[in-house]
């Protein structure tokens, strides 16, 4: 089973081009704005419902694509809510994993007895921006396009890998796709390889955005995707400006999930992050927000968040991403050595590199308490992130400890390099010399998956489309290959244990309630983690300053930035 979350890729891609946002740090002190729980979500001016006005979205780079069939990017997913709809929708609520709700479909799908067939029915009155009706065939065509991987190299594949007939080559070469049936204009039936309990979450991905075949301009579809949502593209000057205006063919009655408050969204693309943060902090543009990671804040901007006037305009919230340090289990095969390495690392110093506690919480597990059915997680790691050097050294007694290790990092990001510097110093205590090896950011994950996997590498995991499910984290990160014989493709530490991997393989097809399944996955995870294939570090918390006219600004758990769906503007 190939199941990979998109967020991780998206984060990597965004960071690759974003400036080296955020380098400073601080330790245990919580953000001053949050009383009590420092990591509670902060929504700016909640409960606003007036329509009208323009929201100015400042971004440091253009969207990689606007084509729902070619998008693995959170930013595209965020803006995509405004102009395309999908069968189901991952609806954001601040601080919560998204809730899967019906969107184009009347419900979240009907599953067959054997769990291999899911059926969805489209609502009535659905129209494109040109007034033509949205049909089940269009949804099917949208999914088909994502199989043309030679054309859409970034097409999301989570859904595709769950469906049968996965040798399909896409509509341009492969003809009709047998895994999806559309008996009429309203009904759409998916055939799966294996049962997949979280299937409703998979169809919330952009694959199921309807694309009218007649309007498919292939690679150039990104320049003007046909709108099925509340807004449509008014103008798009690549690299400079995107303007979205209301789509008068959109019927709010069919769409309870989208408040669609502003009349217009104006995206300024490729404004430098310094400018963005400066503009936001100084409230130079009261209608402004940003979609850049970390709210485009620079390390030195952290001080301004202590200003009450500014913190009142700062939306805050976790995003689904948890960063880890992955240990190559092939080159560091002894679990005790891995544990010693894990114990020797000063994770509080790493937290500083993320900007301190305000920008991320130290975690000892990749599983969050929001996950359904979570069982108790145990870890020998110090909860404050301090190294346990004596314990680590004791573990290494009499072992053949490697003299030299390599830490690989994406070359575009200052922070990841700094983490290496911290690691270098920590491992010196164990008598290990660490070499820091930059890897071109664009090739980073490919390198990790290939022969270039270093001994230690940082990665982020954002929990997949359904971030409330433990499976969506555990399986792709640590699970076995499709045949259960080796490690899975996104398994960066290359974890494979005959017994544990077999258990995970079997769990994939298991049925049961979400709680039951969640408990089973988290138990496996607990056992896997006792061998330290990876070291959880930081659960990122985004602070995003918005203009003073901006209302209902919440940080999306999935988007890691202001949720464009809910935002409004005071006129």
């Amino acid at each position: 089973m190939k199941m990979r979350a998109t967020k991780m890729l998206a984060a990597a891609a965004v960071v690759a081009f974003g400036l080296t946002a955020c380098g400073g740090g601080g330790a245990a002190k919580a953000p001053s704005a949050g009383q009590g729980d420092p990591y509670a979500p902060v929504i700016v001016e909640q409960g606003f419902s007036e329509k009208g006005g323009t929201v100015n979205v400042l971004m440091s780079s253009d969207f990689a694509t606007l084509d729902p069939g070619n998008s693995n990017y959170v930013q595209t997913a965020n803006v995509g809510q405004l102009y395309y709809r999908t069968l189901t929708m991952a609806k954001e609520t601040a601080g919560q994993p998204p809730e899967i709700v019906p969107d184009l479909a009347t419900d979240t799908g009907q599953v067959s007895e054997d769990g291999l067939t899911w059926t969805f029915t489209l609502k009535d009155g659905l129209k494109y921006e040109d007034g033509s009706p949205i049909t089940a065939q269009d949804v099917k065509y949208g999914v088909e396009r994502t199989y043309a991987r030679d054309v859409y190299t970034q097409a999301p594949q989570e859904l595709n890998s769950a469906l049968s007939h996965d040798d399909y080559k896409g509509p341009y070469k492969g003809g009709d796709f047998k895994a999806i049936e559309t008996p009429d204009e309203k009904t759409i039936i998916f055939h799966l390889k294996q049962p997949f309990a979280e299937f409703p979450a998979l169809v919330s991905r952009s694959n199921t955005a309807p694309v009218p075949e007649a309007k498919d301009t292939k690679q150039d579809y990104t320049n003007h995707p046909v709108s099925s949502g509340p807004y449509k593209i008014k103008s798009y000057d690549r690299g400079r400006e995107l303007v979205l205006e209301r789509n008068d063919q959109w019927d709010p009655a069919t769409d309870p999930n989208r408040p669609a408050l502003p009349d217009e969204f104006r995206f300024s693309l490729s404004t430098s992050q310094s400018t963005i943060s400066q503009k936001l902090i100084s409230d130079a543009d009261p209608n402004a927000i940003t979609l850049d990671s970390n709210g485009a804040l620079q390390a030195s901007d952290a001080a301004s968040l202590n200003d009450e006037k500014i913190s009142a305009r700062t939306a805050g919230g976790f995003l689904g991403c948890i960063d880890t340090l992955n240990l190559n289990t092939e080159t560091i095969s002894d679990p005790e050595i891995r544990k010693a390495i894990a114990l020797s690392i000063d994770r509080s110093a790493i937290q500083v590199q993320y900007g301190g506690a305000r920008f991320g919480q130290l975690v000892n597990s990749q599983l969050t308490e929001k996950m359904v059915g979570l069982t108790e997680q145990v870890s020998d790691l110090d909860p404050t992130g301090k190294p346990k050097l004596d314990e680590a050294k004791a573990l290494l007694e009499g072992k053949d400890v490697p003299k030299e290790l390599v830490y690989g990092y994406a070359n575009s990001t200052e922070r990841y390099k700094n983490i290496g510097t911290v690691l270098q110093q920590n491992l010196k205590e164990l008598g290990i010399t660490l070499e820091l090896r930059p890897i071109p950011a664009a090739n980073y994950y490919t390198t990790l998956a290939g022969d270039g996997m270093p001994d230690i590498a940082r990665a982020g995991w954002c929990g997949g489309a359904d971030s409330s499910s433990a499976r969506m984290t555990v399986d792709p990160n640590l699970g076995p290959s499709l045949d259960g014989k080796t490690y899975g493709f996104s398994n960066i530490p290359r974890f494979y244990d005959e017994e544990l991997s077999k258990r995970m393989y079997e769990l994939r097809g298991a049925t049961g309630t979400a709680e039951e399944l969640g408990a089973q996955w988290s138990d496996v995870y607990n056992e896997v983690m006792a061998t330290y294939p990876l070291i959880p570090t930081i659960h990122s918390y985004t602070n995003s300053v918005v203009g003073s006219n901006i209302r209902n600004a919440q940080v999306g758990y999935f988007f890691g930035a202001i949720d464009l769906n809910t935002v409004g503007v005071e006129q």
Partner: protein
Amino acid sequence: MIGFLFRRLGAMLILLLVVSFITFTLFQFGPADPAAASCGQECTPERVEQARIALGLDKPFFVQYLAFLSGLVGPRMLGAPGAEQVCAWPCLGKSFQTNENVTDMIANALPYTVSLTVGAVVLWTVVGVGMGLFAALRKGKLADRLIVGAASFGVSLPIPVTGLVLLLVFVGTLGWLPFTTNAIRSPFGEAGFFGWTTNYLLAWIALAVLFSAQYVRITRNNMIETFSEDFMRTARAKGLSRGTIVFKHGVRAGITPIVTMLGLDLGAMLGGAVLTEQIFSVPGLGFTAVRAATSGDLPVTMAITMLAAFFIILFNVIVDVSYAFIDPRVRVN
């Protein structure tokens, strides 16, 4: 003259071809695999292969190069087999990273670079040549020594230092000027001339500090040399006024190397002032090129390298031609 131009343009084409070939070749050895880069974390070897085919990277080196060249002559087909699209002339390919048409990217970036160049060139020419001339006229006096000292200091200021210090002082501390925004491409837009000027002012100054200093030195040295020429003595012996001697005889004769330098600098600047654009986040050619170069985006890097080489060579030719207008001795030959 026409023959000369014809030959220079011919040589220019050949040089550009060589530049393109070298750039193209270099990238075959690049660290970044564009195919792998274009499919990100979810890559399977099979997907990388598909991406490779879609980007045309599966073809032999020379086929790729010829395909690239064909885009310079006429429209060209791009994209995965079966889903090709026309890339209109002049086609420089599409970005491996964003799939954007490179010609459009360049057209988008150029106004920023031009804005940066125009202001900076005007500023440094006026300041540099003016002060250089003034110093030459005051040779050996206090003003001269001060200017020469300042120029020595100026040429020793690296752009990153000047740029960051300017940002620190005028944006960070004093707050007199805003961070550069990409919304202003020209003085003819919404922001108007004033907005344009304030937007680019610091970047201009950062460049002008370095270049003015160089121009002060070259102008001063040239003028001093010119002032010691025999014909300047003749001009004095005729009883001409100081102004006539300095400007009509001296400056006219001493300006040639400055024009040369200005032409070459202008050409180099139009190719993208990499550091300045980076520091001040001006999304011009240099800025785009840095992104492309560090991420292995071959079509973009190639296009900007070639464009930059084109500007350099073009201004070389312009300088040569302008000699004919300045110096009658060149006109005959």
